[in-house]
């Protein structure tokens, strides 16, 4: 058995300025949501850039970032904005953009400044929306989100606990997949090299994996029923995820900042 990092593990308590992990998950979804929706309709370069900076500032100050998260923020997002921006500029229909500035000429094909502006406004918009989603996404564990859905939004707790059980299924199914692969290899099923053989091999795992998963789920369900799960309309919680004054402050402050940024960008 190898010990893997559990992405659904309980988060350690935060200290000092790192305020994001201690906030309610719902607050971290509600705060950036209006800005994310409004950004879909933005067509300039400045507005998405401003929100990209805002999201990065909130994350860098408020979140305790692991190496993987830092890699995502420092490399993956800037690189994808760059690639999407260039890609969309190349694909943009040259007849419909501002042709006053020619940036690059290759034979009969010209990359106009207008195409670059169109491409990068799309790329920055997507980058801004994704980084706003990461404010909550990088600082919340799945179980905490589920708990706050049950405790604040009154999602039926049987559905909430189904989701909590689902998080525990993930490592279990990984183990099961390994066993199925070994069994197939022992029997020499779907041997061979190359992408087609690999696709056939993976196709052969789907039904046994799902069948095993469903059988496991049925056993867990019987075990839960035997312990009278769902016998009462409400239940007590071991882990409380409260919605406190600081959550309200965070949401209101973020909304105010969003409005201010939109007004500033529009007044330019």
């Amino acid at each position: 058995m190898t010990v893997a990092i559990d992405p659904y593990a309980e988060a350690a308590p935060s200290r000092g300025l790192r305020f994001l992990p201690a906030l309610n998950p719902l607050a971290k979804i509600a705060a950036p949501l209006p800005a994310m929706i409004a950004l879909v309709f933005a067509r300039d370069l400045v507005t998405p850039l401003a929100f990209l900076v805002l999201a990065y500032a909130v994350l860098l100050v408020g979140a305790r970032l692991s190496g993987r998260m830092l890699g995502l923020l420092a490399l993956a997002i800037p690189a994808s904005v760059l690639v999407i921006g260039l890609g969309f500029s190349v694909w943009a229909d040259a007849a419909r953009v501002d042709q006053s500035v020619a940036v690059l000429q290759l034979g009969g094909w010209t990359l106009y400044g207008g195409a670059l502006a169109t491409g990068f406004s799309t790329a920055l918009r997507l980058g801004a929306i994704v980084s706003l989603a990461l404010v909550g996404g990088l600082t919340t564990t799945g179980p905490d989100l589920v708990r706050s859905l049950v405790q604040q939004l009154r999602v039926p707790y049987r559905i909430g606990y189904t989701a909590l059980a689902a998080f525990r299924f993930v490592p279990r199914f990984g183990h099961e997949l390994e066993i199925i692969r070994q069994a197939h290899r022992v029997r020499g099923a779907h041997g061979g090299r190359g992408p087609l053989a690999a696709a056939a091999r993976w196709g052969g795992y789907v039904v046994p994996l799902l069948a095993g998963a469903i059988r496991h789920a049925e056993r867990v369900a019987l075990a839960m029923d035997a312990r009278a799960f769902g016998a009462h309309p409400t239940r007590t919680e071991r882990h409380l995820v409260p919605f406190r004054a600081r959550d309200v402050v965070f949401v209101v402050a973020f909304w105010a900042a969003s409005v201010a940024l939109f007004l500033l960008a529009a007044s330019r």
Partner: protein
Amino acid sequence: MSRVSTAYLLTCAAIGVAGGILLLGANWVSTALFATVPFISVVLIGLWLLPAVVGMRLLERPLAALLVGLISGLVIVPFSGYGFGSVATNLWYAAFVELPFLLVLYRFWSRWQYFAGAVVVGAVYPVLAAATFDLFSFPWWGQALFFVLTLVSSIGGVALGIAIADALRRTGVARIARRRPPVRA
């Protein structure tokens, strides 16, 4: 809520988790494709319909598709790089599988309803994507390709999902949670 069995809930969870693992790979491939050849990236869109179709076809119970979509979204939140956006995305596609059955108040469960949902995805998604991705800046053949690929991919995803669900049915799993056909007297 007390009417649905725990076995139904957890079977949906199992299908959702398996679907989430599948979507994790698809998620990164489609992001990479999107960055380089934007209108080709929709060939993978059918995969987002797949878990919901498997759950719905196997169980034939109300709300199975949405529950599978919710779980598959929640499971990939730590890995997808989109944060909670993944939950919204997966619920959104699952809704198109749920809708054709909700509209007939879950009275019948035929094969064409899944394909009807796929056709609606093929019509609705490109229009919405046009607003988000500024599709109108593409040449006309790019836009047409985008439409056709979305439709072909979602129909393919539904067909694959039905095939997987029928294969699972032949293995005999999910007997507890499945809809029982009414007994004829």
